[in-house]
């Protein structure tokens, strides 16, 4: 049988993903093994390191059987994959934040709102759930700058510690969602390689089980502002 192909997200989740695979006994995943090459074969597993947003692409297209990816990535590009396990690491929150001292930061929602975000799909769903007509401005980085420079009234962005927001004089107004890393699986691999996939999911589920589910899967729906 050919090795099970796993896509790992480069970036912030990478080292934790490697540690989890190793701890769970799935594969000997040394992050430094990827320093020079992008693909590492360890026995019955073939591991590739790709950009986080590319993980669902590899998995949906069947180039990989399974992958580890943040839920925040799946919000933006929903793909035809199975999402099997909440891996409970890489936790972060999607929040609406506004400049200190602004009316929005004080809880007064303006009639119309311009929001800068790297997450237009999740932001749209959040504003729709609130019944707020917001104009979204898609940026690719340094979203915190947008309110300072007058490009937008607020941001909808990911925060893990809140430090970056604070450093840019932004305060959280509302939470739009919570994200953790997930195990996703190709729809055909789930059927044609079900034994290997089941073993992978079970090992990972067991490895992450002790922790309480500190983060619910579905973004909580907030009450509409008065």
């Amino acid at each position, binding site marked *: 049988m050919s090795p099970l192909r796993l896509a790992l997200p480069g970036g912030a989740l990478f080292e934790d993903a490697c540690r989890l695979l190793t701890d769970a006994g799935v594969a000997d995943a040394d992050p430094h093994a990827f320093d020079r090459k992008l693909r590492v074969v360890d026995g019955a597993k073939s591991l590739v390191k790709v950009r986080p947003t590319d993980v669902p692409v590899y998995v949906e297209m069947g180039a990989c059987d399974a992958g580890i990816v943040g839920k925040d990535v799946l919000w933006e590009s929903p793909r035809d994959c199975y999402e099997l396990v909440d891996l409970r690491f890489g936790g972060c929150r999607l929040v609406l934040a506004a400049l200190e001292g602004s009316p929005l930061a004080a809880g007064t929602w303006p009639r119309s709102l311009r929001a800068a975000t790297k997450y237009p799909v999740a932001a749209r769903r959040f504003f729709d759930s609130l019944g707020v007509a917001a104009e979204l401005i898609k940026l690719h980085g340094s979203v915190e700058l947008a309110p300072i420079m007058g490009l937008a009234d607020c941001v909808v962005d990911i925060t893990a510690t809140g430090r970056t927001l604070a450093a840019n004089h932004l305060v959280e107004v509302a939470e739009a969602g919570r994200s953790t890393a*997930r195990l996703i699986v190709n729809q055909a691999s789930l059927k044609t390689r079900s034994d290997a996939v089941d073993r992978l999911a079970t090992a990972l589920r067991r490895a992450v089980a002790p922790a309480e589910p500190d983060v619910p*899967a579905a973004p909580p729906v907030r009450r509409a502002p008065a």
Partner: protein
Amino acid sequence: MSEVQSPTPGRAPGFSDWVGPAAERRRAVTDAFVDTFTAWGYAYLATPLVEPLTTVAAGVAGGSQTQLFRFMDADGDLLALVGERTVSVARVVATQLQGGPFPLRLCYSGPVLFNRPPLGGRRREAMQAGCELIGHAGLAADAECIAVAAAALERAGMGGVQIDVGHADFIPSLLDQAHLGPEQRAIVAGAVRRRDLVAVEAALEGTEVAEADRALLLAFPTLRGGREILEMAGARLTAVRPRAVIEELARLWDLLDGHGITDRAHLDLGAVRDWDYYTGPTFELFSSDLGFPLGSGGRYDRLLGAFGLEAPATGFVLHVDRCCDALLRGSGDETPRLPLRLGHSVRGAAGAVEIAARLRRAGHPVALDLESTEPPAGDVVGWAHADGPGGLRWRLPGKQGTGVDALLAELDAGRARQ
């Protein structure tokens, strides 16, 4: 500096040309499918590439309509390029074939189009071939469709496919017996539909679903196996409806056994399909060489009703292009069968026409040189000369011979070896 110009005439992104062996493979697979369908008594039917949007909407949920190419004709009517052909067949049956005789066995092949963004790696035009068996509500019809699909794939060179048989009513019946509120039920059903087990788990948290039901719902992606899985699931079920599903699948399994295809079949109770469309047994076909199903089908007893004809129906579609992908990955690029090239001398030209006709009648493609040569050019397989014994001097790699009969024998032996 001048503007950069496109080096070649443009082709719309997401669409493919089919040239050479790929084109031949695609045609051969389509032919193998349709030949199988007709061999099982399914009458071939051709439907248009364009349907009114209202017709398409009968089979395609609102959200998926955005994946269709839609446009307006001169009268202002909304039209769509078809994204699947079952609805078209249903429309024909409900209008022109409503008198039967039922059961009607119909098959089709043709392209379908999707207006999905390019660069996603998914095709925007795909060849599909499929069957519809209309007017029979029994499981024998469902079993026949699965058997036809398996036979068609086998004839096209894909004998090792995996058949996953499920039932459209199993998960909905579990949801109903779980006593969820309407809102919670919708959330859980939506999560199952998205194949998001994490969200199913979260949605069931804090509900008063019985532990056994919860365990079954959370196990949905793994409720797979042979006939034994039915007993396992049946033992955990008390409600009438899910038990009825289990019994139906048991009977279907026995019918599939009769068709001799349970060696490659699995029962998949957690199969996630469009529950609004399918009403009974469903199935999907997988190859270990491809990340997408090669085909899928199932019972859809409500669709004909949307066109005013109450009739049960079941059917399936095979994705020709995905099958070609799987063939290519499974066996590598096989050498295509090139036509024989037949050359001739000036005096042998007339005889060469006859020899070519004889070879073609025997099933060998032959391209006759348009101009006479003297002596035979290097890669000419046959070279006809009026003076040669039997009218032909021929050459195959490493061989030399003299007559048409010898050439035919050699060609047949070569074909038998393939």
